[in-house]
């Protein structure tokens, strides 16, 4: 069974991961995704009835620590990498629009 991932689906997942995408790119990715997912469908051959999903890798236990105050990066230092800042805050355009 071959899988088809159409351009509409590609555009949908692009928006889910907040990625701008052109019509040409959507077409290119559509073909590539179909062949990749098609290959990965081989997992359907494996019987996983009664097999639990892996959820950790090293049989790890929960790790707790003291809730102690530690020195952290200063505001000035942190903002060195911010593209735009104002009065000690990261500046971004409107988050909640007026439409």
């Amino acid at each position, binding site marked *: 069974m071959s899988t088809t991932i159409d351009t509409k689906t590609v555009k949908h997942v*692009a928006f889910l991961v907040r*990625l701008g995408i052109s019509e040409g790119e959507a077409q290119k990715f559509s073909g590539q995704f179909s062949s990749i997912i098609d290959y990965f469908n081989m997992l359907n051959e494996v019987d996983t009835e009664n097999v639990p999903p892996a959820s950790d890798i090293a049989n790890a236990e929960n790790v707790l620590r003291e809730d102690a105050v530690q020195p952290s990066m200063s505001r000035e230092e942190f903002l060195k990498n911010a593209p735009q800042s104002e009065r000690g805050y990261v500046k*971004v355009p409107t988050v909640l629009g007026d439409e």
Partner: protein
Amino acid sequence: MQLTTLTIREAHELLTTKKISSVELTQAMLQRIREIDPKIKSYVTVSEELALEQARKADERIAKGENVTPLTGIPFSMKDCISTRGVRTTCSSKILENYVPQYNATVTNKLAEAGAVLLGKTNMDEFGMGSSCENSAFFNTHNPWDLDRVPGGSSGGSAAAMSAGLATFTIGEDTGGSVRMPAGFCNVTGIKPTYGRVSRYGLIALVSSFDSIGPMSRDAYDCATVLEHIAGHDPHDSTTYNSPVPNYTKHINKPVQGMKLGIPKEYFVAGMEAGVESALQEAIRQFEKLGMEIHEVSLPHTKYGLPVYYLLLFAEASANLARMDGTRFGLSVSENAKDVIDIYLKTRHEGFGDEVKRRIMLGAYALSAGYYDAYYLKAQKVRTLLRRDFESAFSKVDLLLAPTCPTTAFKLGEKTSDPLEMYLSDIYVVATNPAGVPALALPAGFSNNMPVGMQLIGKHLDEQTLFQVAHAYQQVTDWHKQFPNI
């Protein structure tokens, strides 16, 4: 005396007997980088000023005889996904092209405390996504053994720098073969330690449940030396093991007679280059001569390793890369942006290369309603079976031997047009990471004048056995002492 091809312990001996200084050694490396690296292009950033400052400090430590470690004064390079305070850390991506971290990764701190000298940051596939280094947003790295061929990936810059004598050791990162596959292509020894053995704090995450930082070096002894210094518990990474780090080098000479070496039959199948297969067969005879018992074993779910690995990678990477959004750090494309979502869309469109785009979109696909059970959950179930394969094999043998790649290094451009074909070159190295087990890659000979790599795969936290066996092999072979003519 050729300073640029010394092992760590040769350099250490010369430094502590005052035959050379760290400044001299560092300058020799920087000089060779200036001369050779324009051909290889393994470094994204050379941190010359910092290197010379660290070298001067190392020389003072050695002069006073205070706090001298085997790494004091030794020049190294680091894959460009590990944070270095004040030194640009790009992941070879446009989105982080001008990103200068304000803090060090734990590994960076540990190496600085040991007195090692950071030469610079090495090229990689963007965010670790690739098997040839051709997905770097900046430039291709060339294999020092044949400049028309790839160095492998994603730690391709690290492997190429090591092989060309542009660092005495290097730090790579292995999410699904990214240390071992390029080590094999470039005739370098490298280890992917057990997941959780080395802190991931400050590593720019690709797949948080696979990522393993590991050293690459001239031989297994040097690898063991570096791992001793970077492994260990870190309060900043709750997945690190609490158990003490063994003194690997102290026990590295222990005999390997009677150890059981498993040969997984699923790794020795049609499709392997003839020269790779004959090199591996010769290596098996060598291990037998060393007194090891050879046993055929089966890892029945091997062929599902690739889809399991990639599906889980897509899913975790799509979440991990969400932070690259153009608002707090990195590239920001905000011109004419009407709202914050518009900044995300524009920044990520411009800042990510095609392979990153493919993988994060496929991650969202595998996690989305209607497909989650069929892809993500299914992959996590088969991951359990992959892990059981290893557990069952390790109930019969002490360690496993496998090739690192079915072929030697392929030509630049050979696989770039078909993403799936590029994925398939990882077929022998991906299964270890979903299982979390350690694996050490080392040179196994040559096929048509190109290096052949092999890997020893061990039990959880049993890096010691891998070092012992690799070291024993390197006492009776000299593949690892061959250097390219450049």
